[in-house]
């Protein structure tokens, strides 16, 4: 056990865990950020996708020790009121079915749009390639990323 100081959603958070604890379980078990979803634990499904230093990353394959000097943003910290353009587009197009993978999908899409504000379908499919949705919401996800891009353009 050791104490780690993490910067999560703009706040300093102290946790006492083993250093090899995956960041996923730190966020979920220690900090109560359960919007970060466990889906596979080995970086294959994208359900836990969050932002580390502004880039889409998989907390299930990072450790607490790796994460001390990084800025971590989870779905809970993406926007103050749930109105990030991606979140709005997701609601407008009624994307979710069970919804379990959607925090990860939303975070992957938000990271994509932050670096490429007007992605084509190929860029969308590349960025979200390893975010599995078992309900089959992919057609709506693709449309919602395009919609979010338009919302961002209109409001710039």
């Amino acid at each position, binding site marked *: 056990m050791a104490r780690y100081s993490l910067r999560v959603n703009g706040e300093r958070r102290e946790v006492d865990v083993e250093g090899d604890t995956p960041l996923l379980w730190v966020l979920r078990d220690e900090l109560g950020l359960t919007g970060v979803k466990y889906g596979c634990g080995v970086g294959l499904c994208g359900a836990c996708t969050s932002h580390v230093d502004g880039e889409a990353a998989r907390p299930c394959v990072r450790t607490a020790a790796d994460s001390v000097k990084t800025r971590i943003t989870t779905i809970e910290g993406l926007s103050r009121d749930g109105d990030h353009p991606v979140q709005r587009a997701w609601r407008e197009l009624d994307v*979710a079915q069970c919804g379990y993978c959607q925090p990860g999908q939303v975070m992957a899409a938000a990271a994509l749009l932050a670096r490429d504000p007007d992605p084509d379908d190929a860029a969308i499919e590349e960025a979200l390639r390893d975010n599995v949705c078992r309900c089959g919401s992919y*057609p709506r996800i693709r449309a919602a990323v395009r919609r979010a891009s338009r919302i961002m353009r209109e409001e710039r």
Partner: protein
Amino acid sequence: MISRRTLLRGAGIGALVVAVPVPALAAGGLVPNVFVRLDDSGRITATVPRPDTGQGVRTVVALMVAEELAVEAGDVRLEQAHGDTARFGSQGVANSTSVRQLSTPIRTAAATARCLLVTAAAQRWGVPVAECTARDGFVCHPRRGRLPYRAVVRGAAALDPATVPVELTPPEKWRLLGKTRGGRVDARDVVTGRTRYGIDSRPPGGLVAVVARPPWIGAVPDTIDDAAARALPGVVDVLTLTAPAEGQGGVAVIGRSTHQALRGRDALRITWRGGTPTADSRAWLADLRASLPAQSPIDGVQQVYSMPLLAHAPMEPMNATADVRPDGVTIWAPTQDPGSLRTQLARQLGVPAASVRVEATASGGAFGRRIEPDPVLEAVACSQRAGAPVQVLWTRADDMRHDSYRPMSVHRLSAEIGPDGLPIRRAHEVATWGLTVLPIFSNPALVKASGDHFPYTVPGEVSVVVRPAPLRTGFWRSVYAGQFVYAEENFLSEIGKRSGLDQVALRRKLLPAGSRLHKVLDTVADRARWTSPPARGTARGVACLEEYGSAIAVIAVAEPESRRVLRVHAAVDVGVALHPSGVRAQVEGCVIDALSTVLGAQITVREGHVAESSFGDYRWARIGQTPEIDVTIVQSDSPLGGLGELAYPPAAAAIAAAMAGDTPVTSMPFGTDVG
């Protein structure tokens, strides 16, 4: 006991307590029945008697209640029923029944509340009821103005519901039902991460358990050395679980945190005995092939189809949390059937059902897997041992390797062809396994009834051989229809190809006059511009299904050379679509399941265990493989139909037929070795 009603169609299934009058409560509020209530502030609360597994039942219930109470869906607060079947009726999500069975009781419940409110206002004003209407949370009268619901709640509660006539809002006056606007009621919670699934429902102070599961099918622990595990920080206890009373069996490590429990499991030293350490799914397939009768009853065109094992693999792995105390039991679980779960737990623990509370949390997918109670039984055993709330968490590999799989099957189809190239007699011989999670499903007649929905006028016979299942098998979206329809529609396509017939025209010709399928087939053919020849390098496939009280036709367009499916068109008749966006979503989801299972996802068994362990090797479709999906809703006068499973079988058949081009389909996945 798990209940399943596949064969009990028709009236009276899962009958719900409709608008049972409950005496007005002294505490205030209007409680006209068990499904809907208004408190003194006029706030509307509805109880959703089925868990939401992604099929959108919470949204449909909110829409139904809001429609009848003349408010917006967002004005309706939703609660889940906690397994109390005496009050709320069946709570099982199975056989695509939720909307079919809930529509009348829920709408009647809300309409009863509205009629009581309107009557109370009319009495207050001294005007005829017929002059009053409900609108936007008010009762309105052309001259008296309007009263908010909260002002008439008490008056309404004093009325005897039996004396107030109840009328449902007719479809032509619907504002919400059947309309395209409005999405999931829980959408904001989903995209902000606030939705609480089973995995998020561990209470404060709760422990976590993970289970070391048999390394090959049927193995049980022989020797257990848990000293190293117990020495690790945060490991609280280790216990042996006995199947089936405590789930599927294994050794559970209970820890203070998920990571500590996982590390504890890694540190266990277990030897195993028994089971089938050499089992191989290729041998199972060969056994099924050998189980078919030596001779087909028809000497004509013939094709054999092989179907793989499939896992459910919901995004939220199996989990459950139990808090077993002397005075009662609370379960938090993503379950498809809190009612049966509560009954089973009460019996097993020897406690009254009233002391068992099953919180059906949001569920990260289900697809038939969460009808089964095994993760809950594990959690109960762990909580009893620990004397604290315990969450049992399955890793992804646990989930994929210890599922209740869709059975393998082999189908031999034969037909005698008439002079016009159409089949005039057919035979469909099936060899498969039963469903171990519900042993009555080893009855061939039940398997046949679940799978056989051949809609065309070709006389013939369907025969089923059921072999003992060599591993755990269960209900998988569409159950046996997934295999049967895939074989039947691909065989019909094969006959069409051999006879040089148009695939849509031949189906039109073979459908009986008056079939609901004519309309959806014509509609989908229009949408897909069927009469124009396919673009160069593309091929098309067609399939139909009438089942669950609904009808669907699907046309898929693929580019076989690149193994890409370009477009899937579907036309669907569910009677009246109460939530069109939800209807489309269910069809889209089934199309992606079809795409995944036709293009490569299958479970295989080698050296006694399931080879696949995650989404790297269980090759579910990704966004880049997703075709354009075009869903047309065909309204009809038919009663409300079910939809959760309808599109999977014909979508799989149509996609395979399109991918095959001029070659025959012989398996699922298409063009891959099965097993």
